């Protein structure tokens, strides 16, 4: 598990108040207990703060699994675009 993956697992577990062991790369985010659009926004905002990045607004609609979410964050952290043409970026 990468450091990004570990951090995101922690963020999701805290937002949904669930055991981190329930979260794996292949886990579909929407199948997690308590997961909805409101919790997803909390997760995205917490992730942005943790990594000092800005994620694309359409992210919740473009990812299905935790692993996909981690992949997008890793790309943005690395300074790459999110792969969807959106200028996701680091925040000063």
């Amino acid at each position, binding site marked *: 598990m990468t450091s990004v993956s570990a951090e995101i697992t922690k963020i999701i577990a805290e937002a949904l108040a669930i055991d981190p062991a329930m979260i794996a790369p292949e886990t579909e985010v929407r199948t997690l207990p308590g997961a909805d*659009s*409101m*919790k997803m*926004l*909390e997760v*995205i*905002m917490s992730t942005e703060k943790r990594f000092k990045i800005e994620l694309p*607004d359409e992210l919740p609609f473009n990812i299905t699994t935790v692993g996909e979410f981690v992949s997008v964050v890793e790309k943005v952290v690395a300074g790459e675009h999110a792969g969807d043409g959106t200028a996701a970026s680091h925040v000063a």
Partner: protein
Amino acid sequence: MNLVKPNSNCFGCSPSNANGLQLSFRREMDEVWADVELDERFESYPGVIHGGIVATILDEAMGNVVRSDETSLSLTLSMRVRFSGLVKPRENYRVVGRVTSQKGIHFSVEARLLDSERRLVAAGEALFRKVAAADFADRLIVQQTKPDSSETAEHDKRQCGNYEDHCGGAGDRPGHDCA
């Protein structure tokens, strides 16, 4: 120097603007909060509060947390709003604003609109500039009494050649120079 109250006609927080949101903010520690309940006047689709109104609520919370007292004004420089749920008329919400960082007179702030179960339905992040009200006085039209709205419009038109673009909208927009 008090240029904002009690004669303010602020759409967001003036208690005397019958057509406004009439948000009443309270400060606790480093946050401000207000309870929000709107009626159908502020709908977009039936049963849904207009997204622009939700953005205004978030903007108000962020502006109010920057304004530490009535001698200062907070000006929105940029704002990002994200929605995660519908805001409905005649339901209870709470908006909370707080400063996340400060560099001189520039404040990074955030606001969250929470439903009655404290679930996040909308969030805003913004950059504000805080200025002394006295330094901004020449750009404000200070109302000594509450005039008829048609008189106010005529007055603003005389003051500003770009009334529709400026005074008709957010009069505190940075760079706005109606006087």
